[in-house]
């Protein structure tokens, strides 16, 4: 029994360390790529290629004074960033980042929590993300913050529906709610050569899910909760220092988690096509699969960043129209078509 706890603790610590380091790397990558796309230089002085710039920024945020507005609700103002970061970090618990590996003399599944209802857990935790933003906006006692917070709740509630419905298509194909089983289902080959990834089986669901994921992470083109020209900085206008840092951390952790979930559900998870024919030892194969997962997630994150600096922001009514009049019907039609096809086959 002790062994189980030990393994969980090791996995958890490793996961948090990896996420925190990746957040720093993504922050650097985002600034370099945006600079490249806008024909600027970007951070290049601190460390090689400016890699240590974000580290310096973290230290700066830690040392800054924490300012709470006089008329703000102190308790909820403190609590909101904590909720945001807790929610952002807990979603990852059910994502499998590899098949199994030998650790402490036993076969260990490479996911933090092996839950029967993995996908539902993921959906329910992401739906809690609204609280951090809404409460931050409300507690700041600032009109811009409040509008940002309200926009975020409306946006997340609208896009959660199409997110859930696009997952149903995947569920119907794989017939399970366990994320490790969904990945295993994608390791076969269609017609003997095409990997049976869900992106090939469920292309429409992939598109609706990816769009909804962008909306859920509040990234451009859906970053209305913090639209700078209209709302100063939206829900985190009144935040400084470490609490502001926590919101940033939560945002980038959300991007990592969303990418990991997209990879798991649609891009074959840790599956590297034809790797099982290489004749590697089981341990080597496990390491290769973990690396494959990391590379896939990194590519999806890169996609997130490139989209942010390519596409302009939606207007609020366009956002709602897209969510309710385009995404939702498409997602429902996808469920119907998938059902019909499964019935015929």
């Amino acid at each position, binding site marked *: 029994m002790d062994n189980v706890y030990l393994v969980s603790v090791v996995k958890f610590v490793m996961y948090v360390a990896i996420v925190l380091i990746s957040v720093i790397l993504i922050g650097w990558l985002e600034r370099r790529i945006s600079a490249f796309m806008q024909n600027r230089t970007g951070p290049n002085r601190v460390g090689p290629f400016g890699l240590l710039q974000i580290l310096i920024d973290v230290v700066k945020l830690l040392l800054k004074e924490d300012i709470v507005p006089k008329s703000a609700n102190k308790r909820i103002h403190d609590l909101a960033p904590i909720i945001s970061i807790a929610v952002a970090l807990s979603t990852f618990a059910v994502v499998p980042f590899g098949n199994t590996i030998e650790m402490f003399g036993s076969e260990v599944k490479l996911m933090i929590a092996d839950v*029967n209802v993995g996908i539902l857990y993921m959906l*329910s935790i992401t739906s*809690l993300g609204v609280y951090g933003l809404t409460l931050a906006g409300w507690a700041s006692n600032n009109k811009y913050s*409040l509008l940002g917070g309200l926009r975020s709740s409306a946006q997340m509630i609208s896009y959660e529906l199409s997110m859930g419905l696009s997952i149903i298509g995947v569920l119907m194909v794989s017939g399970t*709610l366990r994320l490790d089983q969904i990945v295993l289902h994608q390791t076969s080959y269609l017609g003997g050569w095409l990997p049976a990834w869900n992106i090939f089986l469920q292309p429409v669901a992939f598109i609706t899910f990816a769009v909804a994921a962008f909306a859920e992470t509040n990234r451009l083109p859906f970053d209305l909760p913090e639209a700078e020209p209209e709302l100063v900085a939206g829900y985190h206008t009144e935040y400084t220092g470490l609490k502001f840092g926590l919101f940033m951390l939560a945002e980038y952790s959300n991007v990592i988690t969303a990418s990991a979930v997209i990879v798991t559900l649609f891009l074959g998870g840790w599956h590297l096509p034809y790797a099982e024919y290489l004749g590697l030892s089981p341990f080597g194969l496990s390491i290769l699969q973990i690396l494959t997962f990391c590379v896939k997630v990194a590519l999806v994150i890169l996609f997130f960043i490139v989209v942010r600096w390519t596409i302009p922001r939606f207007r609020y009514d366009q956002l709602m129209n897209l969510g309710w009049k385009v995404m939702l019907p498409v997602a429902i039609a996808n469920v119907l078509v998938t059902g019909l096809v499964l019935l015929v086959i």
Partner: protein
Amino acid sequence: MDLYIIVFYLFALITLASAAIVVISKNIVYSAFALLFTFFGVAGLYVLLMADFIAVTQLLIYVGGILVLLLFGVMLTTKVIRVDMRTATVRTFPAVVIVAALAGTLIGIFWSTDWPQSPASDGFERTIPQIGEMLLTSYLLPFEIASVVLLVALIGAAMIARRERKAL
């Protein structure tokens, strides 16, 4: 089994304490916010009872859906329209009668029910396929009736929201 007992009392404490805040607090935003922890505690108790599907659905529907809308409404009314929403004690006598009747019923049920002392199963079983099949076979009629009720509520909400206002 010691850890189990400790965790149970922890979740029970969270549920009861936050539920007390919901009722007692004068500030309605605090009440709505405390309800979040009540739902959380109940979800935790479901997990302890090995009902993972119910626990996750509890979070998804009550915390992620209903409570967000509730908080939304409360916050919009207090901040945007500047109505000071505070709860106060009014109509003590009818309230006492109704609460006494309700409490009596609940305590009666509490005493007369044979409470199971342990979860129905030792581990997390794959209950989702069974739940799905039951919903679409034995319990199809209640399931469909619930969906019709929800549809009626939806139409009612749309009617109220889109009603043409007559000139005052």
